[in-house]
């Protein structure tokens, strides 16, 4: 069946999402081209406590993992809830997109997306406080990701300061 073009009906899970890295150094076309050939996945919504070993255990079930780069808080250099998983082949990375995206690891539903390929510096959170941007403004209490969002915590501290 390989000589037939497979209808999009069966390709949804591996096609690109709408997210684009706004700090990507090349143009949009180049980024898309890289994403379509990429063997690297961004993995999000991890617990801060989830280890590389756990990620390896799950993602190696989709194929041979080349390396895992843990996302770190820019300031504290501790895990801040995301990572990159690189495979040796595109097809293994596609399997991970198909079968791991939106399933659980460490009791959290994780999210996978294509990444244009790891470049140094991307392992750090881009939020003002050092972690991921989403943890700056988060309203809910998430014990796996350091409790409340950083801004809310700051706000509360300021309130306290005002009282004193």
């Amino acid at each position, binding site marked *: *069946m390989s000589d*037939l*073009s*497979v*209808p*999009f*009906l*069966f*390709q*949804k*899970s*591996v*096609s*690109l*999402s*709408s*997210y684009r890295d*706004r700090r990507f150094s090349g143009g*949009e*076309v180049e980024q*898309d*081209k890289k994403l*379509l050939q990429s063997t690297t996945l961004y993995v*999000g*919504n991890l617990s801060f406590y989830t*280890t*590389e*070993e*756990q990620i*390896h*255990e*799950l993602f190696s*079930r*989709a194929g041979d993992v*080349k*390396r*895992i780069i*843990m996302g770190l808080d820019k300031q504290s250099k501790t895990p801040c809830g995301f990572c990159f998983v690189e495979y*040796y082949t595109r097809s293994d990375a596609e*399997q991970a997109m*198909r*079968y*791991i*995206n*939106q*399933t*659980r*690891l*460490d*009791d959290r*539903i994780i*999210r996978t997306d294509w990444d244009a390929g790891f470049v140094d510096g991307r392992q750090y959170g*881009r939020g003002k406080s050092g972690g*991921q*941007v*989403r943890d700056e*403004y988060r309203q809910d209490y998430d014990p796996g990701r350091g409790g409340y969002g950083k801004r809310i915590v700051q706000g509360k501290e300021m309130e306290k300061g005002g009282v004193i």
Partner: protein
Amino acid sequence: MTTKGGRNRNGGGYSDDDDDSHNKSQQHQRSSSSRHHHHYRHHHRSDRRYVQQPNQSFQQQSYDPNKRRKLGGLNDEELTEDKLQIALFTLGQKIDSTLEQTLRDLCTTLCNDLSKHKKTIFDILNQCIQLVPERVTIYSTLVGLLHASVITFGSDFLDTCVSAFKESLLSYKFEIIQRYIRFFSDLVNVKLLSPSSILALYDTLIEAATETNIPQVRTDFFVSCVLIALPYSGKILSEKNNTELSRLLYTIDKYIYNRSKIHTPILQVWSSMEPHPQEEYLDCLLAQIKRLNQDEWAESQIFRPYYSYADTLFSDVSASIVHDLPTLNIPEHRDGIIYPPPKIVFRMFDYTDVPEEFVLPGAHAIERYLIEDEISNILHTYHTERKDCAVQLTQIRSNNKIPLNYMIVEVIFGHLFMLPRPHHLELFYGSLLLELCKLQPSTLPPVLVQAVEMIFERLNTMKTACIERFVKWFSYHLSNFQFTWAWQDWIDCLDENPESPKIKFIRETLQRCMRLSFHQRVIEIVPEQFYKLVPNKPSPVFKFEENDAPVFGSEYAQLLVKKIKERAPAEDILRILNTVPSPSKDDSSLVTPSSSTVTQSSNELTYTMVQIDIFVSSLLWVGSKSFTHSFAALAKYHQLFKILIESEEQQIQVLKSMYEVWPNHQQMMVVLVDKLVKTQIVECSAVANWIFSSELGTELTNFYIWEILSSTIEKMNRQVEKHHNELLDLRRQLNISTTVQLASSASLQADSMPTEAATASSIDEKPSDDAKMDEGETSNNDEEKSKSSSLKRRRESDDDEDDDNERKDSAEKMQISQPPIDEATAKLQEKYEMVEERLSHAREQQKKLYLIVFQRFIMTLSDFLNECETKNVDPVSTPWLKWIMERLQEIFLLYHEQVFQYVSTFESLIFTSDIDFSILEVFQQFCALRA
């Protein structure tokens, strides 16, 4: 169309919410001038073909084809193709009352488009027949309606189908062949094909099964083609051509009675026939067809929409012509064609297992087969989209009160446990079961729990390979449900032999649960009685640590640890290692007569096992914080490894030292061995010898050991495959037309392929950089390489320059001996010969690896059998024999493609009549898989 919800449309942050649906509707309204659309047109043409049709189950991913028009990028033909592909591929995805009208409307549309877009329509219809077998009757209905409406359609379309079918025959696309035969059979029902001509096709297929001196797997295939088509055409044939049909069935019956079934035991998931026999698939299918014949071909499962169109299709005044299939020839057997291997029918439920309101069709009811087949087809069609797959499975319809969830679970487990290998990634089946649980949260999980309990109760006779897959799935499944399980139900078995299958299953499951979570979590999920089965905390052990009774070499190890932490250069480490004295005779347990094994470097220092042990232990200890730390440590001192490690004994010492640091962390050992092999510090054969070494004796029944062996064998296989593909590619470039039998399709001859000729030149060749197990692995060591260039080299081949010079030399030589050809071709020629040499070298290594593995299996098993005899123990009563014997079976099955290439060597060298029959039997069963 831009896939999974527009979660990030509001900015860069990632949203966690599980429910995409609201985002999806927003997505729908996204500006269509998005760059992605332009982009996909160029790169993902297939994406463009997915367009939405209202009221279909795929509407979650909104995409409006009309928007494309605004882009102005699509011409009329492309638009039609888009529209048609959606209309045809989604046809009948959900069967409801609107289908009848949808089919009529579609027929009208197609009739209108036919003159202008005939080729497109025919192509897509053929695609549907090939890709969506579970809806074949809907397509045959549509084709029948078109046939009744357009006088030329029937013969034209048939021509296209027949030529596609012929092509699938010639290229041995077995799945496609079967799908066309079934489709043709159903065309009899819509009066497009004559019953006599479909019978003629069946006769041709059966005739092909009476040839002699051909493998049984070939004849099996053609017989199965007829059997799977008969439920569709049987009724009409019994009415119109009953004599011929009876004769056909008689011939099939005789064929199946006489065939060999040596292969059956090795494929069965359970060695016991209790409570359900694991029937050979053709036996079972024949029994079902015979039953159907007795029932006068009345079945109640196949959805036959054509009966709704009696006025169009079956009216007496219909003017449409019934066509005959042209006579088709079955291509002859050639050596090297790999036919579909035989199967067994997996059954775990019978009618007593399901709630009373349901009726599970009996084992030999055709409905059981038809529903199982439909489930299997949906699994294949939708395996890339687990959510859609789950939806499609739950929509299977039946005229009877069937326990659909039971049947779905049974078929999914049947696929997961399928031997030699599951069709798809194990993870697919796991994630599909999660989706099914999500879709039917109150009805599916109880069935799954019941299934787990039943499999658990049958573990004693379950094949080791299947138990392992069960462990992997179960731990994964639990990890998605907070590890909730009624563990106390299994307390009764805790007193069994610690090696018994049930205990092993629990132990290995907890091990995997720990790998997916962490040690403390596992402690928390199980009752206290299970603690003895909970794995040890996966911490490293450093035997050289400072304590009251230091072991030999501790002071050097301490120093190394300090230096490595300071990121000292390799030279410094080597200097320290050089000061380690040879241990006295009393301490010589670690020392082996290495000087005698390494003769080539007699003038150089050979590093002792103690030195290697100190280095490896210290390095791994320093890097013990995480995988990344360990890998970084290995990478930093890669060149030092290359200097220290030469002989296989030294390689095995690396593995032994690793085992001593990480006895409690199985996953770490798995990834470390993987890295050591990929970076060529350790060869595959050393891993195999280490696994069967006495130090690991007690570990041999643990699953991680086999995880290491499989991953090692797979790396070897991939290496061969890589060179093979390179060679094929070069050959294509060179346009070499000679039929040198290197292709894997000709693997049967590989044993006698030109290895002998090529070996002479390649045997001395040391692995060059290109021959590395993994290219990416060492590239980041360039820095280290240049830094350590002052270190003396033991392997000249590590030097890229030397290697290049050699290549240039050989190139010059070649050009002298060859007639003048243009430079580019000469370069290609040169490269071709180089890759050819590498391939034959890799094949030699591959063969050697399998030889070692099988030899060590035989030695280990024979020793055990002898021991049992001395002790007067029945070996079959011991769990050990089961674990190891079935691992041997597993290696044969998992790597049957590769093992078959060298099967004659193995037969003449190691699987000889002087080994124990129980071992030899495994080999014979394996050979029968292709007989």
